[in-house]
Each structure stands twice: as structure tokens, then as C-alpha cells.
């Protein structure tokens, strides 16, 4: 055999080895049992590299140091199911601000996976994984990274520019649905996660976490308690200090208006807030604005709704949901009309029913 041929074989072997290694890289990290977080290397190209989950990935079986949580009332995203987790480095803790916001230490990661069970009656089986969003606090500033799952649901890759994916499922009544699910681009994260132009988490507030949560057959009687026991939240009497947010679809937790306002706060209040991106509208949604019902939209003319007014004169006309811009825009699926502006392509029927009932029972008249 000639020297030249040997060289070629040698080169080929090296190349093949490199190639194999390259292909295996993500899965080799996946088998590790503790979270892999090197701040200078963030964001990784693949979700598996963080080792937040044990294999197989789509089951979202969290590593011991990764804690699942759920807010009492959640943002609607086209009926997507969501699995949420928090991870913090060892020996640091979150604290609680006066308004109940959880103040996380540097290098905290909030993890949120969006998926659709093919059959909503069997949410643990046959999931179509769509995206996993990470909010990472780096040097006191949050950054958002989205990982898009492959079709097989075995791995998710960093994505900046978003995507549109057709998704189908059967709801609990067996009715088939299909939607163009929209994965937001990196810049759009800030359209919602925004206070005074700073990117911030939305869900983790003491009020929202003040309650029980069952994740994969493990029942946690109270999440605030659980976070403290796990050592990730400073000790305190948070459960009594911050009254639980009403659960929007559980009449036992609160009256109609309180539940409607909780729903609006979670679904709209991140923008419609004096320090949120919709501050220009003067429409502020959530229980904090109950003392000024004009700010809540009652008999409030629109500012810059354009065709979003749908020919209606006020955000809310008491007793008349069908004459209320708020209801019209929540019902719409026209991108130029609908609210929220991003994060959904179809209407949330059950949420709409709640808001409808709230407006129907509201007293007063405009002009």
C-alpha cells in the first residue's frame, strides 16, 4: 500500500471519528445526572446540554435539582400544555419583593416547555413537543432563549427567529383541532416579558405560587413551602403574606370579578400595566386597578385601536360584552385586531366565557 493511500485512510478515519463524536455530543451530555450550567458557554446549542431532564427528554422528567412549578392562573397559548421548572445554582436562594415578585439570584434558569398531547384525555402520552423557553438571569439581566424541538421530539435546538408549526390534537370532548402554532422570535419575548423596557419573568410571584401542585404523581401541598424546603427560597411566612391569586376557572377560589381580573392580569396585565409595553393605551388590566374602572376599560374610549375597535365605542360597556372592544379583540383571530397581539392564533373559549359573564353582570352605563 502506498504512503498516499495510508494517509488517506488515516484522514478518513479521523474525519469519521470526529463526525461520530459530533453527532453523539448532545446525547452524551444527556446521560449526566446533574445540571450542566457554565455561564460563559450559555446559551448552548441544544437543550439536552443543560441536563435539566433525564432521558427520554420529552417526558420532561426533571433532574433532582430542577423543580417543577405551576402558577394558579396561567397565560393561554393556543391550548398548549406547559411544563415549568426552575433551577438555581447550589447554595443560593431567591427572595420575595414587597409586591410578591420572586427575586431570583444570578444564573437562575426558568424553563417552560410547550407541548400538545395528541389526546387531551391522555396528557402524559404521545406528546408533540414544540418549544422550550429558557429565561436565564445573567449578570443581573434576564435573557430569553427558545429551543425548538425536532419532529421526533428527541432534541431541541436553539432558535432565534421563531417558527410557524401546524399542530393538531383532540380535546377532552374528542373534537379535533388544528392550529398554526407560532413560536415567537427572540425580540418578541420582550413584547410580553417587559417592565420599564427591562426583560423580566412574569409567572413566578408569591401570589401565583401560593397553592398545591401535582407534578407527575408527586403532590406538593404548597409550592411556596416546597421551594423553601428545597432551599431555593428564603424562609418566610409568604403563604400568609400574599393571598393566593384566584384560579380563573375555579369558582370555589373567588367570586366572578376576582377571577376575571386574575385572568386579565395574567393574560393581558404584563403589557397593559403603567410600566408595560401597552402603557400608551391607558388601559390597565388586573386587580390593582379596581379603584379606577376607567383604567380597567369601563366606558373607556380606545386610543389607537384602529380597526381593533370593531366599530365599538368603549373597551367595556357594562352588561354588553358584544359591544365591548375588550371582548371583541379577545375573540378575534385577525393579527391586526386580536389581543394579546402575539402568543395565540385562536381564541380561548373558556376564558372568553368568563369575561363575557363578568361584563354581563357589571353594573353601570356609558354616557
Amino acid at each position, binding site marked *: 500500500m502506498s504512503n498516499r493511500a495510508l494517509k488517506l485512510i488515516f484522514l478518513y478515519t479521523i474525519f469519521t471519528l470526529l463526525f461520530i463524536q459530533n453527532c453523539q455530543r448532545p446525547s452524551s451530555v444527556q446521560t449526566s445526572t446533574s445540571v450542566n450550567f457554565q455561564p460563559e458557554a450559555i446559551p448552548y446549542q441544544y437543550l439536552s446540554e443543560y441536563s435539566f431532564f433525564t432521558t427520554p427528554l420529552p417526558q420532561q422528567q426533571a433532574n433532582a435539582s430542577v423543580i417543577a412549578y405551576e402558577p394558579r392562573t396561567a397565560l393561554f397559548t393556543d391550548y398548549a400544555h406547559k411544563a415549568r421548572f426552575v433551577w438555581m445554582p447550589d447554595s443560593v436562594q431567591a427572595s420575595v419583593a414587597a409586591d410578591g415578585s420572586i427575586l431570583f439570584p444570578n444564573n437562575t434558569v426558568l424553563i417552560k416547555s410547550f407541548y400538545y398531547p395528541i389526546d387531551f384525555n391522555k396528557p402524559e402520552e404521545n406528546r408533540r413537543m414544540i418549544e422550550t423557553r429558557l429565561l436565564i438571569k445573567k449578570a443581573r439581566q434576564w435573557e430569553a432563549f427558545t429551543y425548538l424541538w425536532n419532529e421526533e421530539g428527541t432534541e431541541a435546538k436553539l432558535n*432565534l427567529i421563531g417558527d410557524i408549526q401546524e399542530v393538531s390534537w383532540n380535546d377532552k370532548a374528542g373534537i379535533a383541532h388544528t392550529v398554526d402554532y407560532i413560536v415567537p422570535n427572540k425580540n418578541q419575548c420582550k413584547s410580553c416579558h417587559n417592565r420599564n423596557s427591562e426583560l423580566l419573568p412574569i409567572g413566578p410571584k408569591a401570589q401565583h405560587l401560593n397553592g398545591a401542585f401535582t407534578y407527575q404523581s408527586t403532590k406538593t401541598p404548597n409550592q411556596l413551602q416546597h421551594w423553601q424546603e428545597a432551599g431555593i427560597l428564603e424562609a418566610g411566612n409568604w403563604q400568609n403574606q400574599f393571598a393566593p391569586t384566584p384560579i380563573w376557572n375555579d369558582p370555589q377560589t373567588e367570586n366572578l370579578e376576582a377571577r376575571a381580573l386574575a385572568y386579565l392580569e395574567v393574560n393581558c396585565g404584563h403589557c397593559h400595566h403603567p410600566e408595560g409595553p401597552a402603557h400608551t393605551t391607558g388601559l390597565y388590566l388586573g386587580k390593582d386597578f379596581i379603584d379606577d374602572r376607567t383604567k380597567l376599560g369601563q366606558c*373607556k374610549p380606545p386610543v389607537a*385601536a*384602529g*380597526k381593533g375597535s370593531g366599530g365599538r365605542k368603549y373597551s367595556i360597556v357594562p352588561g354588553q360584552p358584544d359591544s365591548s372592544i375588550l371582548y371583541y379583540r379577545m375573540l378575534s383571530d385577525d393579527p391586526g385586531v386580536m389581543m394579546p397581539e402575539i402568543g395565540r392564533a385562536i381564541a380561548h373559549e373558556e376564558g372568553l366565557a368568563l369575561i363575557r359573564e363578568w361584563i354581563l353582570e357589571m353594573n353601570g352605563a356609558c354616557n
Partner: protein
Amino acid sequence: MHNTLIALLSFSALLLIQSCQQASQEENPVDSDLYEKIQTQLINAQTGDVIEIPAGTYHLDRSLSLEGVSNVTIRGAGMDATILSFKNQKAGAEGLRITADSVTIEQLTIMDTKGDGIKAQDCKGITFRKVNTSWSDGAKASNGGYGLYPVSSEDVLIDSCMASYASDAGIYVGQCNNVIVRNSLAFENVAGIEIENCTNSKVYNNIARGNTGGILVFDLPELPAGNGSLCKVYDNVIEANNHKNFAPEGNIVGIVPPGTGLILLAAKGVEIYNNKILNHKTMGIAIASYHITEEKWNDENYDPYTYDVYIHNNSFERERAVPDLTKDFGKLINYLFPGKPQDIIYDGILDDTREGSNPMNLCIQESSDGLRFANVDAANDFENVEKDLSKYDCTIQ
């Protein structure tokens, strides 16, 4: 026989070509590559970057957005050359959304967005130069509200732009400080150029033609920016703004009667001079308090009056026309002045806390022959309509 055959063949060939064209027009395949390229550049942008969009017509199904990076320029190859079409838009409330400081957008056209054309919010420094926004089916209520839409921003410059067919305002500047709108053309929108709750604005050298209302200077209640003030409108051609009002009800521009040149609504510190105000079937300039809308408000800091207004050296021309009959204010003009378009209409609503013979400090010095002015005394059911201008012969420096 031979000729007939040729004719038939040509005819069917034409039909074929036409149907092909129609098919490709309807499909409008999305230019995902361009979207990915530009949006990736916008996400990865560094201070000082120029993001160039080459010549071509591109169909996009999602909004483009720039967030948090200052001193970025987004540049097309020219208003007629780089066209971003959002006809098939599936997501996003506007074509392009900017939340960043010192941004320049230039030399491109945004077509057929489902919502607003370009929205720039909370920017310190935003320039639009040679940018066009439009909707290809002409004036329709289903068009987006605003073409160029800077809001809650500072140092806004709109220069040499075009805006047409917006169902609210072609150029809409809301809750901004230090605003210049110049050398631009706004046509066949409901409002051509609207300055709303802004402080320190200049609107000059523009053409507002064929809108429902040409130029509006408004202050509305319940807005975080509060009351606006100080606006100069000069050297503009404001012509034949007689278009049907196609705004969806509920929006403030819905009240504008077709045939209106300029409206000051709850505006303070305004100077209007050297404009050509031509051929409006209802009124050239309207000076009004927010009370005229008969809307309530719940904003204790809101100042609903128009005052400190100086209108001078404009030229007015009218054609014979019947003032508008579709909106309340048009009907009012017709009722008071049957078949006579007016040049300057003042609602005469006074703020009782102000004193003197000219409490609202309204100065009008116009020399057009046969100028039609009226204070319609709206506060007293139009009892004392006054056509005498001498009371307002004063200057404001």
C-alpha cells in the same frame, strides 16, 4: 375562418396567461429566506449596524422587530424598489416594530399589514426617511389603523415619506416629544397626519390630499403622556380632503367629517401659518374643545380646551360644494350654513376659569378675500353665531 381561429387562440392564450398570473398572485409564496435573514440580523444587531434589504417584492407572514439595540439603520433600496408585503400575515400586529433608540428606517415600502405599518414605541430618536406605507386595495375599513406610527417616543423625524389608505391615520404621532413631520405626502387616509398628545411638534412642507381630514392636532384624555402642547403647522398644502370617512367607529377620527382641512381638538399652543388650505367641502380649519365630542372622561389632569392658538397668513380656496352630511359636525355646518363650506370654524366653548375679552387667547390674522369664519357658540346650542373676526385680531409670539 383563419382569422377567427387566430383570434380564438389568442383569446384563450390571454385567458391562460391571466389565470396563471392570478394563481401566482393569490398564492404569494412566503419569502421565508428573506424573513429569516433580516430577522436574524435584527436580533443579532450591534450598535451602529446598517441592515440592508435588497430590491425586490417580498411576502412576509410575520412581523419584523428590532428590540433594544441603538443606532441601527434599516435600509431598503428605495421606496419603489424594496417592497415588504404582509398580505398573508399570520402573526404580529404590525409589519415592523421598533423599540430601540436612535433608529433610522429608510427607503422601503410596507404594504398590506393586518394592523399598523410600522410601530415605533418608547424610542429616543426615531427617523423615518423615504418610507412608504399603503394598502393595495385602496381605502377600506379593514385596512390597518396607522401607516407610520411612532408613539411614546422622543426626537421623532418623519421626512420625505408617503402614507396612504390607512383606516385611521397615515402618519400618526402619539404621545411624543420633539416631533418633525416634513416633506411628506399623506393621501386617502381617514386622517392624513395626526399629532396626538405631543409636545413640541413641527409639521411643515407636507402635502395632505384626499384624506377625510388633512391634518389633526388632538389631545385626548386618559393617556399616560398627559396633555400635549406647542405645535407648529406651516408651509403645507392641505388640499381636497373630502374622502368618505371609512374609520371603524369608536376611534376618535371616526368623528371627522369628510371635507376637513385641519382640526385642533383640545390643542394648546398652536401656530398655523403659510399653509395652502384648498377645496374642502365642509371646513378649512376647525378649532374645538373636546367637549364638542360629548364624550366623558375620568382623568382629572385632562385639559379639554383649545387655547393659545395663532392662525395667520394661510391661503384659503373653496369650490362650490355641499358640506358633509354623513357626520354630526358636517350636518351641523350644513344646518348653520346651508350649502356653504366654511374656512374657519370655532366652537366658541370657553374655559370659565380663564378671563379677559379673548379668554382662550385665539388669534386669527387672515387676508383671504371673503374668508368665511364663524364662532358657532356650541356651548349655547348655537344661539349666537358670530362671523366677525375682529375680536381675534391679535398676535402670539
